[in-house]
């Protein structure tokens, strides 16, 4: 379902070339819940961004649902992002001027759904994250944990097959982090494939499969090594 082969990503600035990913190969099957761990700067976010079609790779092949992603134009890539992929970011990234309802509405608007269908989906997904009563609130009126739940609702409203989460609990305390993980497990049990980047191994353990990234590559290194590296 997701298949990356020898993907590399090089960031070029005037003076330096950074190899964020090198010959990165990974296959994720439908319905998996994969955690990605690794030291800071190892290329986790870069991998997630390429997987989510937010960035283009420098070389290699990437197939999503059997489709070669490198052949898609901007409109098609936008459509894949909109329909197949849901994103959850560490910093929530809600739009501060819009209320909760309108924030969840954003991806549905680009989907071109009618008003009734959008309303149904927004209410359903906010209900799932337990915030059905906060439709008219502004993001700033909610706690961090609640904001992240809105972001999850936004990702779910489009009924994606993939959920990509980049350190979704990084800005939350342990208790809130746990409840977000509960939510992700529930979503996964409904059949959504999840790839979650984290550097907290206790959270990573709750995924069905763990992979480790170092220097832009998937490594065979044992968790003990990482445990040591993380200190």
């Amino acid at each position, binding site marked *: 379902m997701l298949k990356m082969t020898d993907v590399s990503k090089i960031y070029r600035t005037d003076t330096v070339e950074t190899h964020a990913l090198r010959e990165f190969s990974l296959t994720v099957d439908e319905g998996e819940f994969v955690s990605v761990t690794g030291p800071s700067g190892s290329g986790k976010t870069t991998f997630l961004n390429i997987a989510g079609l937010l960035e283009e790779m420098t070389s290699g092949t990437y197939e999503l649902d059997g489709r070669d992603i490198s052949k898609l134009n901007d409109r098609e890539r936008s459509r894949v992002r909109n329909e197949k992929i849901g994103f959850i970011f560490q910093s929530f990234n809600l739009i501060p001027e819009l209320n909760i309802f309108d924030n969840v509405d954003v*991806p549905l608007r680009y989907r071109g759904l009618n008003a009734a269908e959008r309303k149904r989906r927004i209410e359903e997904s906010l209900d799932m994250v337990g915030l059905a009563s906060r439709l008219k609130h502004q993001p700033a009126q909610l706690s961090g944990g609640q904001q992240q739940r809105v972001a999850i609702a936004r990702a779910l409203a489009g009924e994606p097959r993939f959920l990509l989460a980049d350190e979704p609990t990084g800005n939350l305390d342990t208790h809130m982090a746990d409840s977000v993980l509960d939510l992700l497990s529930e979503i996964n049990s409904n059949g959504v494939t999840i790839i979650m980047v984290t550097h907290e191994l206790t959270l990573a353990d709750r995924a069905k499969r763990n992979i480790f990234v170092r220097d832009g590559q998937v490594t065979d290194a044992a968790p003990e090594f990482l445990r040591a590296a993380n200190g």
Partner: protein
Amino acid sequence: MFRYYLKLGALSIRANPALSALMVAAIAIGIGACMTIFTIQHMMGSNPIPHKSEQLRHVQMDSWSDANPYNGGANPPIQLTYTDARNLLAAEQAVRQIATFKSGRIVEPEDPDELPYTISGRATSKDFFAMFDVPFKYGSAWDAAADLSEEFVAVISEPLNERMFGGEDSTGKRVTMNGDTFRIVGVLDTWSPVVKFYDLNNNAHEPVEDIFFPFSTAMANEYGNDGNTNCWKPPEGGDRAAFLNSECIWIQFWVEIPNQAAETEYMNYLDAYVEQQKELGRFPRPLDNRLPDVEEWMILNEVVDDDVSVLLGLAVLFLIVCLLNTIGLLLAKVMRRTKDISLRRALGASKASLFGQYIIEAGMIGVAGGLLGIGTTWLGLLGIRNLFNRFDFVEKLTVMDWQMTALAIALAVVSALAAALYPTWRACQVTPASQLRIQ
């Protein structure tokens, strides 16, 4: 999607009130400068009698010198000799025809304590009023008999009637000018064509004359001409008879031509007339008769001043400067919103939908700038009117009609969209992930 973009545009404008206000102001000021000058130019050249202008034709025929053609041969003279005017008038080959010239008069008030004063006058034929749809408040034009028998009858303007008779119905009353006493047969209602098209020899935008009287009467009593007189050879003798017989041009001649057939017919008549005059030793130049209508006549007489075009050019430059400013402001706005843009891209907005969103926002700024621009244009025109209020005609030229109002908004929207192109393109270049990374 359009409604969604409108909503986003409104949100964004509200979220950046100062920046948005600056953009609206920049556009409004540029539009105001442009539209003020353009309105004046538009009014200067606007058709004073649109419903009938194609039927009203000035007669042109080339009576000029072969050695030194009129206007280098580009067009026949713009007035007629007395000989030709008299002949064409007598021939009555058109539905209506008038020979006319401007002639200032001195009113001698009945009250001996009141001082005489000058007014502008026009010698013309009775058809003048019907041809040019001149509105009457009291009475009517004089009749054909008055033209024939050189009667002392007159039609006076509304302002003169106000001055002499306090605005009352003055038909039947008398007015004495330069020793001749005229009976008033008609009083005009308000009549102020933007362009005094029937005689463009002097100021094309001056008010219509104060008094009108028969051409025949003016000729019989040797009234002088206040317009232009041009001669390519001197009259043969110094007296008035010699002048009237000369090749000097000084009379405006208009005919009413209802349709194509009438035009052909009248043209044939003119050609035959000129051929006949050639046999008498006149009209040395090749046959070149023309019947320009009112609009063609205004273009030929360059009613729109070149100076105004230069001013308009400057105003357009000013608008461009304002737009460059707007581009800068829009860029600043885009730069402030890269995070929002890349988030929307991540959530599935294509470049095309972002383009739509930003262009519609710019369009909204444009509409606001246009509405405010109507206000600034109005102020600009008011300023010009006050600055030049010693000229009567300025008032007519500083009026914003619905066309100019609509144009102000359209120009503002087009300007805003043009200014938005580059910033919007920049917005579309923001990559989906770039602003979402933290670290």
